[in-house]
């Protein structure tokens, strides 16, 4: 029976009679009172309508990027998602199936995977892509595991420019592999490696890095290669339309968060991760790879061509178990890329580049705001504030502007990380500059003039 159909009083009486118990209390008499669920403190049951209204009120306390002017980024970004995507991924052939254990029967699904892989290979400049993994941070850790499989070296060197969540995931997973994770510092906003030696399995960098700076991937990969280590790069896929492809810079494995490709923010997920490598590492890839072939009648067809680490191939020795989960999100990714097209993705990236440059110039021109680094950026940049960052953010939020992400709590120098997408216009950026400038000025005057200024509120005075 469904949980919507409860046992009536008559049903309960009938069941109690059948087993010879006089009441519900008698039925549970053998359970000591101290172990029973104390229900007296709970509110009585409420109607569905009441519960709906309460949950709706709770949900209304969330702010979405459609309600406030948001410059939040830091790994997930507010890009426009065309209606086309929902229209296609909602088709039941894509929406409902579990991973088929006779995959070749789902030619459409395999073709979508194949086209997705092709798009990822073109973006990353690498030979092989798998059919997607769960999300960005676990993709970084999975890439490190490929390095471990490739040569048994014990140390991973990860740049501080890699997303803090990815580094945390990496440390969590690498520890039981018996691998040591060492962090390489950022100097003037970009990664600097020193003393790479023959114990280093892989170096892990991010492009652009967490502070928005474009890394010199070719020279980082060159340093890794000289030490015999692999280079793993976590990439933001849209800036890759303008930047030199990781594969052309000597990167061995490119991974990343796929949210920006046609997936909404959705409170942090689900999204997907992408994973591409050189042909040399092909057999070490986690998950599945779809391939194109010809059938017995010489017709074009698709197969799952390689899945070397999965449980149905390796049984108890499996080292990867990527299931259905993100295939639909990856499908949204390939639809988005097809919708943009070769020219569209470049135009989108150029638009972000121009607006980010404008925003960086506007913000760094404000009193009490300066650039945290001066490296080239594409879609995101970091500034220092001459005022407490969290208070400045609160002031901006009160004016309906979310100015960006506070960097201090993530282990960086205190500052603000500001992200720009095609959804933020020049007018929006001007508004950000006005609101941020006013907020910084207000906090600076609050710090400087208190307690003599009557302009400071009692709350702030008390905290000072």
């Amino acid at each position: 029976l469904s949980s919507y159909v409860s046992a009536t009083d008559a049903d309960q009486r009938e069941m109690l009679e059948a087993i010879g118990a006089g009441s519900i209390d008698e039925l549970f008499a053998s359970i000591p009172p101290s172990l029973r669920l104390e229900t007296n403190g709970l509110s009585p049951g409420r109607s569905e309508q009441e519960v709906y209204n309460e949950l709706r009120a709770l949900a209304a306390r969330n702010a979405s990027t459609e309600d406030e002017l948001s410059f939040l980024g830091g790994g997930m970004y507010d890009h426009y998602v065309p209606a086309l995507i929902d229209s296609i991924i909602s088709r039941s052939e894509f929406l409902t199936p579990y991973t088929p254990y006779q995959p070749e029967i789902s030619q459409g699904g395999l073709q979508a995977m194949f086209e997705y892989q092709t798009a990822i290979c073109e973006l990353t400049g690498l030979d092989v892509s798998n059919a997607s993994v769960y999300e960005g941070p676990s993709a970084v850790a999975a890439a490190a595991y490929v390095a471990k499989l490739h040569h048994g070296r014990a140390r991973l060197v990860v740049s501080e420019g890699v997303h803090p969540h990815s580094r945390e995931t990496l440390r969590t997973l690498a520890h039981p592999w018996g691998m040591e994770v060492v962090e390489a510092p950022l100097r003037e906003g970009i990664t600097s490696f020193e003393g790479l030696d023959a114990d280093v399995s892989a170096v892990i960098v991010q492009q652009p890095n967490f502070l928005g700076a474009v890394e010199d991937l070719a020279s980082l990969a060159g340093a890794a290669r000289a030490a015999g280590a692999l280079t793993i790069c976590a990439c933001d896929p849209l800036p890759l339309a303008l930047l030199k492809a990781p594969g052309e810079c000597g990167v061995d494995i490119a991974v990343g968060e796929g949210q920006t490709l046609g997936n909404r923010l959705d409170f942090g997920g689900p999204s997907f991760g992408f994973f591409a490598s050189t042909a040399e590492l092909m057999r070490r890839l986690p998950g599945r790879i779809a391939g194109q072939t010809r059938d017995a009648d010489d017709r074009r067809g698709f197969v799952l061509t390689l899945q070397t680490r999965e449980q149905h191939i390796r049984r108890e020795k499996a080292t990867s178990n990527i299931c259905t989960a993100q295939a639909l999100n990856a499908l949204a990714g390939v639809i988005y890329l097809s919708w943009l097209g070769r020219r569209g993705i470049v135009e989108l990236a150029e638009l972000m580049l121009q607006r980010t440059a404008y925003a960086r110039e506007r913000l760094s021109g404000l009193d009490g705001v300066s650039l945290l680094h001066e490296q080239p950026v594409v879609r995101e940049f970091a500034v220092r504030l001459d005022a407490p960052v969290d208070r400045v953010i609160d002031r901006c939020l009160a004016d309906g502007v979310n100015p960006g992400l506070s960097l201090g709590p993530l282990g960086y120098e205190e500052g603000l990380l500001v992200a720009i997408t095609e959804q933020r216009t020049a007018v929006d950026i001007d508004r950000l500059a006005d609101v941020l400038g006013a907020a910084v000025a207000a906090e600076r005057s609050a710090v400087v003039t208190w307690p003599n200024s009557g302009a400071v509120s009692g709350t702030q005075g008390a905290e000072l």
Partner: protein
Amino acid sequence: VAQASYPEELIYHSEHDWARVDGDQATFGITWYAQDQLGEVVFFDPPKVGATVSKDQPYAEVESVKAVSDVIAPLSGEIVSVNETLSDKPESINDDPYGEGWLVRVKLSDPSETESLMDASSYEATLS
């Protein structure tokens, strides 16, 4: 090879491996029965030259269209060469398991271990 065959000059391990002993070295491979059970072999993942292998322990993997399987060392020693041609033609393991489909050549560390292996007729008797 369509027909089962178990050459007399080889010695056999119960995990369906053969060894061709030649002085203090031996060549290893998998038997006709093993390749038949695996089906079409698509990849051989060899050990590194210089690696140590121990009798009864896995030293390499073969991947068929059905599954990845360990290859068990019939004898102990050190890898002196691996069959490089298998990277392009892994199907040699199916087509010619005792010839072109050999896997590795090993310098034996304990030649007396050969005494515990089976001859062709004893091995073939275990298959029925």
